[in-house]
Each structure stands twice: as C-alpha cells, then as structure tokens.
C-alpha cells in the first residue's frame, strides 16, 4: 500500500464553499483562500477500522431497526459498488457510513418536522467496510424525496448520505448518492453546486439488473472515488508500473 502524499484536490471539480443558491452556505463559507500545502504525515495517516467492530446487521437497514418481525415500508434496494482512488486502484478497509430518510422522505431526527410519518421499523443508518477489491454492499429501503426550507419550493431528490474514511485523513469525504432517472436531481440546489455535469453523474447510482434479486430487491451500482496518492520511484520499481 502506498503511503505517498496525495494529489492536490481538484477544486474545480468540487463544489465551492460559497454557493448562493444554497442559502446556508452564505455565512458558513470561509472567505480567505485555503492554505495549499503538500500533505504531511499528519494527513497521510488516518484511523483504521476493522471488520470486528461491525455488527451482523450494520449493513442491513431493512432489518437493523425492525421490531417484532415487522419490516419497514418501501421499495427494497441493494446498493453496491467499489471504492477506488484517483489512480483507479481499489481501496480496501474503507469505513463507509450511510444515513437516509425513510420511504416517505422523513428522517428519524428531532429536527425533521416533515409531515410524512416516521416508520417504526426504520432507523436510517448503516455502515460497512470495503473488501480487498474495494467492494461494498448494503441493503435498504429507497428513500423518498422531501421538501426543505431554502427556496419556497425546493425538494431534495431521493438520496443516501455517505461518509468515507480512506487510508489517510486527507481523503476524508462526505457525499450523497442519487438514483438514476430521478427528475428532481436536475432541480436541486445542493446538486447544482457541483460545477461539472460529469461530477453530478458520478453521484448518480445506476440500476444493475444483474445484481437485482428477483421478486425481492432492486440493485443500484454506486462507485466512489477517493483522492489518489503519488507513488514513489521505489514503489514504481516494486510494482513494475
């Protein structure tokens, strides 16, 4: 595994800090230029997590909050994909954490006052760790879209929030996954802060019929890319690239 420094983050591919269409960013965006610096050992290292911290149902949002043999309401889905880095290499050992609204678009959170009801059998959180080939998978319920106070009539497309730890703290990333074909994607102020259409498309999971379980759950494929590391001359010789 490489321990080199990271490629500089492409800030033209990432959302800016200040995005006026997302009003909360106005007073929460730094105004000074960021101080750019090659990562030191403090950012090339990062916490590691291993499989034995995971419970059996951590990656199963269908069952991990269900009570008394009941099941949550909504479309059953499987989300799977790979975590790669910018060198297109799989990243193993990544802790992925996810959270989402229920099928009606309501979060189990005291700050969410949307009219859609809570589902007593759905908590909305899960986690897993990527395998040696960078792959991960979890089972859930397709989240509903929901309105939010920004403009008078802004709606979030169906989405799942993701948090990821790479092998270095500089790779830390929080993002969101959207669903292929959702018309709300192209009307969402939070999506539209991503400056390139290709960047938006990176966050849209595609239906994967081959992974779909007949009569059970529709599968979506969602690959995630973390920052890549420079390799040293020494590693190049070792790996023959």
């Amino acid at each position: 595994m490489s321990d080199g420094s990271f490629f500089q983050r492409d800030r033209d591919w990432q959302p800016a800090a200040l995005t006026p269409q997302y009003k909360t960013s106005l007073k929460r965006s730094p105004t000074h230029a960021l101080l750019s610096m090659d990562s030191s050992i403090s950012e090339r290292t990062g916490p590691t997590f291993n499989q034995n911290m995971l419970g059996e149902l951590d990656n199963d949002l269908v069952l991990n909050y269900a009570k008394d043999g009941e099941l949550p309401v909504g479309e059953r889905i499987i989300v799977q994909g790979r975590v790669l880095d910018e060198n297109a290499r799989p990243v193993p050992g990544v802790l992925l954490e996810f959270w989402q609204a229920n099928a009606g678009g309501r979060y189990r959170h005291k700050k969410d006052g949307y009219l859609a009801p809570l589902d007593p059998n759905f908590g909305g959180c899960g986690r897993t760790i990527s395998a040696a080939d960078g792959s991960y998978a979890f089972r859930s319920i397709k989240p509903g879209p929901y309105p939010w106070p920004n403009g008078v009539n802004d709606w979030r497309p169906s989405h799942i929030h993701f948090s990821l730890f790479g092998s270095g703290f500089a790779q830390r990333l929080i993002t969101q996954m959207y669903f292929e074909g959702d018309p709300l994607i192209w009307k969402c102020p939070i999506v539209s802060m991503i400056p390139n259409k290709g960047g938006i498309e990176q966050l849209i999971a595609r239906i994967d019929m081959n992974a779909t379980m007949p009569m059970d759950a529709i599968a979506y494929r969602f690959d995630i890319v973390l920052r890549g590391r420079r390799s040293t001359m020494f590693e190049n010789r070792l790996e023959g690239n």
Partner: protein
Amino acid sequence: MKPLDYLKESPSQTAGPYVHIGCTPNFCGIEGVFAEDLGSTMLNGQTKGERITVRGRVFDGTGTALKDAMVEIWQADAEGLYPSPQEKRGQADENFTGFGRCPVEQETGEFVFETIKPGTVPFNDGRPQASHITFWIVARGINIGLHTRLYFPDEDNSADPVLGRIELKKRVETLIAEKTGDAEYTFNVRLQGHNETVFFDI
C-alpha cells in the same frame, strides 16, 4: 511507466442537518443499531501521556455558534507516532486511537474531546512540526469538509514549518488554542469574520 487512467475524486456534498443519524446515531436517539458512537472514546486507563481536555465552538459569519456541526480530530500519540499502518517509524501506543468524533452539543454548540497531548512529528523535509491536532469540520451549509489544525499556546510554535507558511502572521493566532484550565484548552473555529480561522487545502 505504464500510463494510468486517472479518475476524478467523487464530489463532496454537505453533511446536512441529519449527519448524526449516520455518524453518531446514539447521540440523536437511535439506539440499538450500533453499540456506541464511533470516535466517542480515544483513551483507556493505560494510555500514555498527559491527559487534556480540548473544547470549543464553531462560529458562523454572524458570530453564532453552529448547533449542527460534527467535528473530528486526528493526532499522534504522546511519542509522536500515529496509530496507522501508514506510520513506518514505529509502533504507536496501542491504548490510544488517535481519532475522535464529536457532534456539537445541541444547545451550546460546544465540542469536547478527552485526549492526550500529542508528541511532535516530522514535516516532509525532516524538520519537526510543533505538537498539533488535525481537525476536520462538517455541517449543514459546509459543502466540503474543512481541514484545520490546533496548536498549543504553551509550546514553542515559532519554527513550525506549516505555521511558517502563513503569510499574514496575525492569522497564525487563529490556530493557537487558549489555555482555559489546568489541563484544558479551548479552540474556537471561525468560519468567517476578521479572525477567520486558517483552513488548509492539504
């Protein structure tokens, strides 16, 4: 060298107001899914080093403390070693995680970490960096996580290679915590304003 097909890093999206559900579910009342919230304990009884409390708030451009932020820290152990496989200089203290995660308190906006004072670690050119803690801050309205660092007011920070990169010397102060107790430091982060914290593109 074989040419590589580079990929682009997935775009960041805001953590939003409900980050707790996924990252600290017990904190927001979702119990019974994960035994404990990740990063809530960094130490145990055997951890080596000087125990300290680090507390603070994250302020927006109006001077109001954020009530929905999540703060993460990453730091070396008392000997200056990181508990990470990328650490090649030695074995870090097995009784120290190096990683803390804290959702800010919902009334006051305060984060609190019980940790130890980190040792010094080298910069890329071998010069020592002054003792520091790496911070990562996310919240609703923050589109991409903010990296910054805490330095200690009772350490010699004058030769630190990272602080030395800050052109406006007055801004160095934004990275130096205040000593507010015997073994307690307060580190307030300001997203905007005349004393806006220095954030890193690292």
